[in-house]
């Protein structure tokens, strides 16, 4: 009888010891002099990190951000900004430049096809449309370059011009980025208002895409005022423009709308969309200038060659000519006497 009882006591003791070891935190043991630990019930770092990804509390100063004690997510944001973003941005932009160069050297410049209607002009974009385009475009170029400076400046430009000149330049680039954001946002809104009507996708676009937009074969698919490719550019500018505006506004008023982790995500989204936006606009710049003869006039003088227009936007030309056979839509002095 004595033996089992002794074993049972031992087993009980082992159980009690094990359960104490499991439930009592290591720091709860008494001091060497036997005094109890006065902070035994206090929270500690490991415990708080198991409960939430950041540790925060209360501060006695008005700055609410200061109540964050430790936010290790800064490290992930750093990894994104320093390890991922330069590669994603570099590949997107250099990849687009390489693709455009390849297209230029294989397909060449898309030439204006001369016909008997060459020389007659048709108004394609009025003054306000051109103003809107160039205001937004100018802002975009400055915003794009100053934005890229945040990522690549210290890697590419600083070794060339030195830290002092680079810091001064970056300071002005930051001011430009912050202030030109406003006319850019206004421009995106203007663009939506003046061009949304002509950019609603329809069945003609399906046909245009099916025929490769005229890039692949010799045949030119039908198109209204804007072909499917231009509509894609329009909706991309609107979508990315609003996304950049929304994320940019959050950063223009830091911590007004979100906390530190929110700011990190917003900055990441802004930067990622930014580099993709820049790469996409490079293609738009290419096709509107070097890539296609006659295309630049539409946004330059606003008047395009009738021969070009008939090839690229046949349905729109038909509509315009029907509206005003010899009216103000036709260029001055170039209307043949009929």
């Amino acid at each position: 009888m004595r033996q089992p009882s002794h074993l049972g006591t031992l087993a009980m003791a082992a159980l009690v010891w094990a359960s104490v070891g499991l439930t009592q935190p290591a720091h709860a043991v008494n001091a060497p002099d036997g005094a109890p630990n006065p902070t035994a019930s206090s929270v500690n770092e490991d415990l708080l990190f198991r409960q939430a990804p950041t540790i925060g509390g209360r501060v006695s100063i008005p700055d609410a951000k200061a109540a964050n004690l430790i936010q290790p997510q800064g490290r992930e944001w750093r990894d994104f900004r320093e390890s991922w973003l330069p590669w994603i941005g570099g590949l997107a932009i250099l990849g687009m430049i390489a693709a455009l160069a390849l297209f230029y050297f294989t397909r060449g410049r898309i030439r204006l096809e001369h016909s008997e209607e060459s020389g007659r002009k048709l108004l394609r974009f009025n003054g306000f449309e051109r103003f809107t385009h160039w205001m937004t475009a100018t802002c975009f170029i400055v915003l794009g370059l100053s934005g890229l400076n945040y990522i690549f400046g210290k890697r590419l430009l600083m070794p060339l011009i030195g830290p002092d000149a680079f810091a001064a330049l970056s300071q002005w680039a930051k001011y430009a980025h912050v202030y030109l954001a406003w006319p850019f946002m206004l421009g995106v809104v203007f663009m939506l208002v003046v061009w949304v009507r002509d950019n609603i996708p329809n069945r003609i676009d399906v046909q245009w895409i099916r025929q490769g937009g005229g890039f692949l074969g010799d045949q030119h698919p039908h198109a209204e005022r804007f072909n499917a490719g231009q509509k894609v550019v329009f909706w991309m500018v609107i979508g990315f423009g609003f996304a950049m505006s929304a994320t940019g506004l959050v950063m223009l008023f830091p911590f007004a709308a979100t906390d530190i982790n929110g700011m990190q995500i917003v900055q990441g989204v802004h930067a990622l969309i930014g580099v993709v936006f820049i790469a996409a606009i490079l293609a738009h710049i290419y096709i509107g200038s070097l890539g296609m003869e006659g295309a630049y006039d539409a946004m330059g003088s606003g008047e395009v060659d009738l021969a070009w227009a008939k090839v690229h936007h046949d349905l729109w030309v038909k509509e315009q000519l029907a509206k005003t056979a010899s009216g103000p839509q036709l260029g001055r002095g170039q209307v043949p006497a009929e």
Partner: protein
Amino acid sequence: MARMKFLCDADRCIECNACVTACKNEHEVPWGINRRRVITLNDGKPGERSVSMACMHCTDAPCAAVCPVNCFYTTADAVVLHSKDLCIGCGYCFYACPFGAPQYPRVGNFGSRGKMDKCTYCSGGPEADLSTIEYEKYGSNRLAEGKLPLCAEMCSTKALLAGDGEMIAQIYKERVIKRGYGSGAWGWKTAYRETIAI
């Protein structure tokens, strides 16, 4: 050379905020900028704890890594400092900093931040040691005078320790062994990727 660190013994911190006041006064830190603050966790509840926090002068500092103009540098004492002449006030260091150390004076519209300001470990900046211009931009340079940061030097309970990492870790270890408990070196895992083994 030493590897300077801060260590806040949270079992001793009584949230008196004297370190905050001392810092503000020593460096004439402007209104709205706090190089150091005391954060109270579980405020008013059982298990409440206070920790004094400022720039931890991290190993492989995230602020320095993300800075778009590379304005940060690390001194021979492993103190992380920055140049206000180069800083453009973009705010990236605040996003990267795990401890919320960088501070920005508000200087204009649209959240435009002025030159970043943060704890210098009482060791000034890139200007000549103990010069007037250094004091105006970065505050006093106690390290150049052979003194440690004022916040830790005048801490009434000696909760906040500053000095060479190994020395303050040793002091903390001896304390913990003598009194029998300790909650560890807050932020060390994040700042230095190490803890104090006792």
